[in-house]
C-alpha cells in the first residue's frame, strides 16, 4: 500500500481525540472522509502531515516510515478550507511558491506554472494579486500551488466548505480532472455526503477518533450508522410530497 497508517493515537488534555486509527490507501486513489465536527478528522490529517505529533502509532509512505519526519520532509501538502494565498505575491508567484522553495531554475518554473495555469483556466490571471480574484479562482490557485510540487499525498481539509453551491460543483469536477491528470493520491475531508461519494474512490466514516474505511460505496450506503439512509429517505419523502401536491393541483 502507498499510504499506511497504523494505530495512531492522540490525546489533548487527557481526552482521546484520535484512538487506534489505522487504514491504508492505494497510490493515485482518493479517500473521502466523513464525520461529525470534533470527531478528530483534522487532527488525523495533521498527524499524517507531521503538523501534530502522535502520542503513538506509525505512518508509512511508500513503505518508508515518516512518523518522525518534519512536515517539510514528507512531501505531503495540507490544504485548508481557506485558500491561504500569500497576499504579497502575484498569482504566478503563489503557484510557483513551492517550486521556488525547491530552488528550481526560473525557466522550468515558468513552463510549469504556465502549464498549471492552463489546467486551472487561470492563464489570464497570473499577473493579478490574490485580492483581485473570486473565491473559486483563489481556491483553484491554492490547488495549483499544492499540486505543482507533485506531492506524494494531498491532504484536503474541507477545501470547498466556504464556496457557494455552483462554484463548489465546478471545483469538484476540476478536482476530479486534476487528480486524473496529475495522478494524485489524496485524503479528502468533507461534511457533504454527495461530495464524499463524488470525490472518493473509497469512503471512510470517522467516529469518536476512529476511522472505518468501507470496502465499497455500497457498503457505505448500507451502513445505518452513517446517516446516509436517513438522508436518502428525506429526499425521497420530499419527492413523494411534491408529487402528491402536483397530483392534487391537476385534479383541482
Amino acid at each position: 500500500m502507498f499510504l499506511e497508517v497504523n494505530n495512531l493515537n492522540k490525546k489533548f488534555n487527557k481526552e482521546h481525540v484520535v484512538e487506534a486509527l489505522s487504514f491504508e490507501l492505494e497510490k493515485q486513489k482518493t479517500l473521502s472522509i466523513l464525520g461529525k465536527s470534533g470527531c478528530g478528522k483534522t487532527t488525523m490529517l495533521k498527524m499524517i502531515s507531521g503538523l501534530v505529533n502522535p502520542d503513538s502509532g506509525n505512518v508509512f509512505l511508500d513503505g518508508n516510515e515518516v512518523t518522525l519526519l518534519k512536515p517539510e520532509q514528507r512531501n505531503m501538502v495540507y490544504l485548508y478550507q481557506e485558500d491561504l494565498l500569500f497576499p504579497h505575491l502575484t498569482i504566478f508567484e503563489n503557484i510557483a511558491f513551492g517550486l521556488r522553495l525547491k530552488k528550481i531554475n526560473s525557466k522550468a518554473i515558468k513552463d510549469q506554472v504556465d502549464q498549471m495555469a492552463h489546467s486551472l483556466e487561470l492563464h489570464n490571471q497570473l499577473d493579478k494579486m490574490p485580492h483581485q480574484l473570486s473565491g473559486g479562482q483563489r481556491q483553484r490557485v491554492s490547488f495549483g500551488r499544492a499540486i505543482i510540487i507533485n506531492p506524494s499525498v494531498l491532504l484536503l481539509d474541507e477545501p470547498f466548505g466556504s464556496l457557494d453551491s455552483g462554484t463548489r460543483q465546478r471545483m469538484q469536477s476540476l478536482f476530479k480532472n486534476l487528480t486524473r491528470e496529475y495522478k494524485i493520491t489524496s485524503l479528502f475531508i468533507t461534511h457533504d455526503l454527495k461530495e464524499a461519494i463524488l470525490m472518493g474512490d473509497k469512503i471512510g466514516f470517522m467516529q469518536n477518533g476512529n476511522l472505518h474505511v468501507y470496502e465499497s460505496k455500497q457498503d457505505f450506503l448500507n451502513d445505518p450508522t452513517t446517516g446516509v439512509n436517513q438522508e436518502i429517505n428525506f429526499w425521497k419523502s420530499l419527492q413523494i410530497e411534491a408529487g402528491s401536491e402536483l397530483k392534487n393541483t391537476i385534479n383541482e
Partner: protein
Amino acid sequence: MYKNWRAYVLPFLVLLVLFPFTYLLFLSLSGAWYYPDVLPKYFGLRNWRTILSSETGLLQSFLMSTGISLAVAIVSTLSGFFISKTVYYHPHKRILNLLAYLPYILAPVVFAACLSYFFLKLGLFGNVTGVITAQFLISFPYALIFFSSFWNERIKNYENLVSTLGGNTLDRYFKVLFPLAKGLLLVCFFQTYLISWFEYGLTSIIGVGKVQTITIKVFMFIKEANYFYGALSCCLLIFPPVVLLYINKKYVFKKIA
C-alpha cells in the same frame, strides 16, 4: 455659508499648529533679543554654526541620541516580534501579556529609581549601554503588546502551509511572515524609536548626567534659561520625528491601507 466658515477656520488651525515650530526655528536663528526690543538684534546662522564647532556638544548629543534610539528601536522591534510569537503559543499567554503592561504602571522616574540598584551592580550606571538597556525595558513591552495582535490562527495556518509545501524555518520567516508583517514592523520600529528619542526620566537617572542625549540637552538649556540654544536643540529634537512622520505617511500607511 458653510464653505466660507471652512475657508477661514482651517487656515487658522493650520497656522496654530505650525506656529510653535516656526517660532522655534526663528528663536534658534536669533541672538541678543532683550526686552523691550520687538525683534532680535542678531538674526542668522551663528547658533547653528556652534553645533559644528562642538562648543555645546549638541552635534555629539544628536548623533548619540540617533545611535541609542536606532539600537533600542531595532532590538525592541525584532525581539518584540519573535517573543510575541512565543507568548501567543504559550498556555499562559494572558498572564504574560498582562505582565507586559507593568512598566507603564509606574512613572518612568520611579521605574528608573527601582532599577538603579541593579544597574549599579551590573556597572550599567552612567554609560550608553545602561541607557540603551533602560530604554529597552520601556520599549520592549510596547513592541510585545503591539505584535500580540499579529499572531492568530490564520498566521499559524500560513506557517503550517509553508512547512507542508517544503519550506524550513527561514523560509517561513523570510518568504511569508516578514512580508506579511512588514507594515507592522515599520510602524513598531518608528514608535519605539520615538519612545527612545523622547525618553527623559529614565535616561537622566540611569545616565546620571554623563549620557547627554538631545532630550537631556534641551532640558539643560531650558534650565539654564538659554532659550536660543534651547530652541535650536528643540529643532534638532523634532527633526527626526518629522522625518519619520513623513515616511510613515508616505510609505507605511499607504501599504497597510
